[in-house]
């Protein structure tokens, strides 16, 4: 059965299945969400108004048998945080179940006329528009629990917390994990507010008796799958008991700190004296010491990397899943907090309220800089999440993210690009990531430019990684490769083994070709990724963005970052070069 588009109209509470138009047929995941948004959403519309849409799409290989670590779901729309096109993706249960229902994408449009809230129940038989009265106003832990009791088939639950209901710009979209916990977020860019603006509190996806995923060339798919699986399970970083499996993404905390690139106390320093106490190594030690929780946890069925963790409290009870690097950094180092238990408690607050942890931690740091509370005051920091939960005037400001909070407190050290705050890598110390932060179609985003081998990218002999001169082409190539991987449904962490093991790179492309029946190889990855980037860049230009928006924050040009006392030194010309090919130059 060919894939279908499921279009849900919240204005008249109707739904329809549509054939996938030829123009969209080759896309999935991010490629499809961005294509649909670009085709159907006015770039100048208000993100919370009636003309924006929320698009949900599994990747090319999602829902196929045993494709490794392939449970990513893409969510797309116009972002209320950045004003740009936005794709944020998540692990959890949703990707495989949507795909197994035979759906290429779900498009949610319109707004309920009566202002009511709904839980959408998506099954093989269609969509039921259930009242959300039983889950409205509740945090995501309770929402997931209620909906699994109500729908005993253990469905995927896509939902928003109270922050999304209030349509605040830092609202993420939660997806439940295999244990029905809400730790998997399409966090960045405020798409939870876009979902809330459609009057949708939750989407229950039940794939029982669904048609499954059609595979055009099973032999090719299996060949590619084996190559990729072999690469993942044999590489130091991704194999069982490898770096990610043992310490999670938070394996980076001590490394970035040792390098002097760990943003600390609102990007005022590059090293944090308490980094080791909130690192992945410490998470592993606490799990062993408390004889509870776990490392090596998988966020979706079929993950073979398993970089997630379950962090236990002092009594051995599960506190949160998971404490990953960006979260621990945002809640910890960037706020001057070195207490892992408090980091975990704040992470749980974010998961429950429906907040993106990166933006939330950065926002608290801005409030600290603005004098609301002191850097390092963990009790007060935790208390700020109560303000958000209570939707006090202060809480509403904090829920809008970094830039709104900076204005409210008169702060000028604002680590954002296109309205979105930076993740855990300081561009003054790690300049390559700064180029990607500045030019990404999504605002500052650490997942926008994953490295691929230059010889694979076709830029092998042309760039010198040690020089600024090659940084534009490298960043573009990395952004294109990432846009492709974001469309596959594979976790972006497959990028690590396929960088070092060429068979893995080929296997990724072959598995996609096998599912879709497309004639593509590893050589097509970058050109297809650039197609996606062009679609996104064109949308942003129509929304009013120019090259002047592709800039790091001003303070990074004149404030020296200790310990290396570096400022941002990459010329604007380098930044302009990244997307000159779209601008016709």
């Amino acid at each position, binding site marked *: 059965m060919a894939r279908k588009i499921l279009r849900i109209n919240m204005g008249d509470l109707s739904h329809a299945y549509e054939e996938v138009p030829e123009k969209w047929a080759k896309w999935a995941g991010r490629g499809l969400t961005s294509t649909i948004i670009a085709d159907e959403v006015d770039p100048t519309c208000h993100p919370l108004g009636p003309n924006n849409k929320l698009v949900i799409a599994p990747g090319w290989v999602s829902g196929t048998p045993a494709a490794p670590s392939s449970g990513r779901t893409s969510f797309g729309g116009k972002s209320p945080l950045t004003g740009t096109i936005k794709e944020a993706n998540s692990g959890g249960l949703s990707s495989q179940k949507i795909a197994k229902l035979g759906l290429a994408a779900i498009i949610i449009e319109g707004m309920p006329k009566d202002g009511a809230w709904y839980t959408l129940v998506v099954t093989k038989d269609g969509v039921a528009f259930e009242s959300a009265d039983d889950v409205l106003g509740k945090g995501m832990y309770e929402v997931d629990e209620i909906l699994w009791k109500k729908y005993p088939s253990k469905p995927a639950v896509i939902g928003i917390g109270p922050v999304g209901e209030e349509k605040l710009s830092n609202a993420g979209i939660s997806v439940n994990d295999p244990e029905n916990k809400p730790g998997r977020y399409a966090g960045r860019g405020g798409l939870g507010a876009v979902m809330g603006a459609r009057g949708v509190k939750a989407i229950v996806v039940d794939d029982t008796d669904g048609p499954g995923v059609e595979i055009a060339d099973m032999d090719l798919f299996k060949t590619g799958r084996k190559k990729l699986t072999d690469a993942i399970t044999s590489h130091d970083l991704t194999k069982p008991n490898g*770096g990610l499996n043992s310490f999670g993404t938070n*394996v980076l905390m001590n490394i*970035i700190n040792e390098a*002097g690139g760990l943003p600390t106390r609102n990007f005022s320093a590059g090293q944090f004296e308490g980094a080791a106490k909130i690192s992945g190594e410490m998470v592993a*030690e606490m799990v062993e010491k408390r004889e509870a929780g776990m490392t090596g946890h998988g966020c979706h069925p079929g993950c073979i990397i398993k970089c997630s963790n379950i962090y236990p409290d002092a009594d051995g009870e599960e506190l949160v899943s998971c404490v990953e690097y960006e979260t621990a950094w945002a809640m910890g180092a960037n706020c001057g907090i070195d207490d892992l238990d408090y980091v975990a408690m704040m992470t749980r607050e974010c998961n429950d309220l429906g907040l993106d942890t990166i933006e939330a931690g950065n926002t608290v740091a801005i409030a600290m800089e603005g004098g609301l509370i002191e850097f390092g005051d963990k009790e007060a920091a935790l208390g700020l999440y109560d303000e958000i939960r209570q939707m006090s005037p202060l809480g509403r400001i904090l829920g809008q993210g970094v830039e709104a909070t900076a204005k409210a407190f008169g702060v000028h050290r604002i680590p954002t690009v296109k309205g979105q705050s930076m993740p855990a890598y300081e561009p003054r110390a790690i300049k*390559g990531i700064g180029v990607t932060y500045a030019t990404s179609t999504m605002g500052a985003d650490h997942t926008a430019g994953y*490295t691929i081998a230059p010889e694979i990218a076709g830029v092998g002999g042309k760039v010198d990684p040690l020089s600024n001169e090659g940084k534009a082409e490298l960043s573009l190539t990395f952004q294109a490769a990432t846009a492709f991987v974001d469309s596959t449904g594979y976790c972006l962490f497959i990028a690590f083994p396929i960088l070092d093991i060429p068979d893995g790179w080929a296997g990724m492309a072959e598995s996609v070709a096998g599912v879709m029946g497309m004639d593509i190889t590893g050589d097509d990855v970058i050109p297809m990724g650039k197609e996606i980037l062009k679609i996104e860049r064109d949308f942003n230009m129509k929304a009013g963005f120019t090259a002047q928006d592709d800039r790091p924050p001003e303070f990074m040009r004149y404030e020296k970052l200790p310990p290396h006392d570096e400022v941002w030194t990459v010329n604007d010309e380098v930044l302009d070069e990244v997307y000159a090919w779209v601008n016709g130059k």
Partner: protein
Amino acid sequence: MICVLNVTVRSADYFINLPNSFMPTINITLYGDIASHGGGKYIASLDLELPEGAIMDDLLQTIGLDPEDRGYLFINAILHDMPGLYASQETRLKEGDHVGIFSIRHMWPYQYRDGIRMSNALKEAMKERGEMRNTYRENPKN
């Protein structure tokens, strides 16, 4: 928890004939499984006295760490070595240096280290092998 040790090395035969009795103190943090070489589980921090003129190879020998089990290595926030490279072995250590050493299992994707401070010896080593690798071990599958 973080294990802190004070290790004083005074009797290694290798150093007996070195002139001067000044013993620079080096602060070392070990991350990952190699923390056991400093008495920790996954993180160990220790102060080590080494004879003046000691190099990185001496430090690794003193704590009993096989260079093949060593991943990223920093001295004073400057990257001096990578998994599978041996650019730091001859680097001379001095009083007050901080050395951070990671296990071979630690990862650091290129996009998150593109532009960081590196030693000249490491730059040269990476030019030969290509900079955009996650590991320089001959066979990352092992």
